[in-house]
């Protein structure tokens, strides 16, 4: 695979369209404001965040035990449980189940939203096996038809305008060219996808929460696409990262109260489905149902004390919507299935070298940490990754040279005073020396008015006078 553009370069391309960037920025901020209204309307909001955080902390500290309990209960419910150490193994398991189903006739696969299958590049893998997957979430279907990845975990097509969708649907679904009415376009997708649901033999879903105590797999959608897939297809395959397990059913009360409110500012998603025992088919047999538990680096992240908090994530996307960098750089600039602040913590764990730029794609303002429903200290973790990447020699060259120079200057007080003096002189006498394209701090900024002396110089002068 060719190396993607680094975040800063891709972000530069994104902001080239000023009007679109402003729209993206403001729209996501609007979603953040909806989340705020929801948070402020619940008197126990902060308690819920604390409970959710502690339940997740507890679960991670007993993860192997809860996974075993989940496996046992799911098996008792008639679910076949598979363990996949990495993305490749996950894809192979899905491929094998599909081949077994296909042995009985033609196969048609529908998939509702699952960031894990994006992380594993399942669709690409299956395409190589000659199996076409239809993504059924509207936003995901739009980006799939455009052969793009989702740009947001909750709002997959947030980088697109309705004119883009209209153009895509005109080309692929035969809608009227130029008709940009969202109602009309959604209706066209509804008709198109109903056909796919009714013809599906295999339905793949993600998992929002898996309850160890009961083996229940909880999936949340607004469109109803996960249920339409599962209830009509012959086979259900649910794919989950191992961190999605929660201990007890009553914990769902905590997490479902937080999830949609944090994600889109809704009190709850339209559908919160609890898949426990596979449905009975007309022939009396139970529908084959599979659960794939995927590690893919998670056990490694769990072993990093300063970073394992990132595994508490419930994928609500609140940190995306509030992030000043995400809002003005777009999801694709993160070149990872999960973008935004949380993605920038998860991505280096998948491939430290390829994703070394992402922990730097942040101002460390901490807004993400303040909105996170499970209290992940996101900005601290980004800062932690930066230190790891510097130690490993993987930080961007511009950063390492700058840092080395700064550490020399800050380590020698004489040199510090001299360079301060020179900089002030240069700003006053020869501003073009710093106000040019070679100075990255000049990009998009006015350089400050330089004072004639430093505070230290002023202090020294005034102190001797008194």
């Amino acid at each position: 695979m060719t190396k993607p553009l680094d975040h800063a370069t891709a972000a530069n391309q994104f902001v080239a369209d000023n009007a679109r960037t402003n729209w993206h920025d403001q729209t996501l901020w609007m979603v953040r404001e909806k989340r705020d209204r929801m948070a402020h309307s619940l008197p126990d909001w902060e308690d819920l965040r604390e409970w959710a955080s502690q339940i997740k902390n507890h679960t991670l500290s007993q993860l192997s035990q809860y996974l075993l309990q989940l496996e046992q209960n799911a098996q008792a419910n008639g679910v076949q449980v598979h363990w996949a150490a990495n993305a490749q193994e996950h894809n192979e398991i899905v491929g094998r189940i599909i081949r077994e189903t296909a042995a009985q006739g033609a196969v048609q696969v529908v998939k509702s939203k699952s960031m894990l299958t994006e992380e594993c590049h399942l669709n690409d893998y299956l395409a190589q096996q000659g199996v076409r997957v239809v993504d059924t979430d509207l936003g995901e279907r739009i980006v799939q038809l455009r052969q793009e990845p989702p740009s947001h975990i909750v709002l997959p097509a947030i980088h697109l305008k309705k004119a883009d969708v209209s153009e895509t649907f005109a080309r692929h679904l035969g809608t009227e060219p130029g008709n940009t009415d969202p109602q009309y376009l959604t209706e066209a997708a509804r008709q198109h996808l109903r056909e796919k649901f009714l013809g599906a033999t295999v339905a793949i879903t993600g998992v929002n929460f898996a309850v160890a105590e009961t083996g229940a797999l909880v999936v949340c959608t607004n469109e109803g696409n996960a249920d339409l897939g599962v209830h009509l297809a012959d086979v259900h395959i649910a794919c989950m990262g191992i961190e999605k397990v929660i201990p007890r059913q009553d914990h769902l009360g905590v997490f479902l109260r937080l999830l949609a409110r944090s994600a889109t500012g809704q009190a709850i998603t339209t559908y919160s489905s609890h898949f426990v025992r596979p449905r009975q088919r007309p022939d009396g047999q139970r529908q084959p149902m599979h659960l794939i538990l995927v590690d893919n680096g998670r056990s490694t992240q769990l072993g990093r004390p300063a970073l394992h908090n990132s595994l508490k994530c419930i994928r609500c996307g609140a940190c995306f919507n509030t992030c000043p960098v995400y809002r003005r750089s777009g999801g694709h600039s993160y070149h990872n299935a999960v973008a935004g602040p949380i993605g920038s913590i998860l991505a280096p764990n998948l491939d430290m070298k390829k994703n070394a730029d992402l922990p730097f794609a942040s101002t460390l303002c901490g807004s993400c940490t303040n909105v996170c429903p499970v209290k992940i200290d996101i900005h601290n973790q980004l800062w932690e990754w930066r230190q790891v990447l510097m130690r490993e020699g993987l930080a961007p060259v511009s950063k390492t040279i700058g840092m080395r120079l700064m550490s020399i200057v800050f380590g020698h007080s004489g040199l510090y005073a001299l360079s301060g003096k020179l900089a002030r002189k240069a700003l006053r006498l020869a501003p073009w020396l710093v106000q040019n394209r070679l100075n990255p701090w000049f990009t998009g900024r006015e350089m400050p008015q330089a004072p004639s002396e430093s505070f230290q110089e002023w202090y020294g002068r005034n102190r001797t006078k008194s």
Partner: protein
Amino acid sequence: MSSRAQMLAAIGRSQPPLIPLPLVAPRVAPVDLAETFTRQMGRNGGTVVRVQQLTEIRTYLTQNLGKPGNWVSTVHGLALGNSSPDKQDRGHTLAGVDLAVCAGAFAVAENGAIWLDDTQLPHRALPFLCQHLALVVAESTLVATLHDAYRLLEPGSLDYGVFIAGPSKTADIEQSLVIGAHGSRNLLVFLCPTPLHPL
């Protein structure tokens, strides 16, 4: 070594020392459950209609949705239209259903979520495939929060269950809200004082 053993060993090595579970003690704020539920369902895009008895439901439906087409009812004592879904059918036969009327087991005031499980559903696909959905909810089954709702579900007793909190919807095209994505195009909730019984 199998992936299962390998993963469990790696997780066991990595997981931090035991952190205890918190005591979850939600605050109980007294609210008018029916009023809160009705307001919230409205926000979710559904409509709440108050009824006293089953016959009012049929009257309302014929007055507002016109001549019964392919209507089905799984509510005991409420016969509608000409077909009743059969457990033996594949879900696909329900694709032509215009209106489905089902009973909700209980509902949550804070978010408008109505619980249905295999007890209420002859086929799990029904409330998703029908064009229009109507749910009958008894006011006496309303609870304040999701915490209360999960207390009503005996762990281990469930095969399949779903909270339905409104019509299917999406805002995936430029954040414009469109009601009627893949599932039902609208949701009508008949709120009656106590569980309705056939006359």
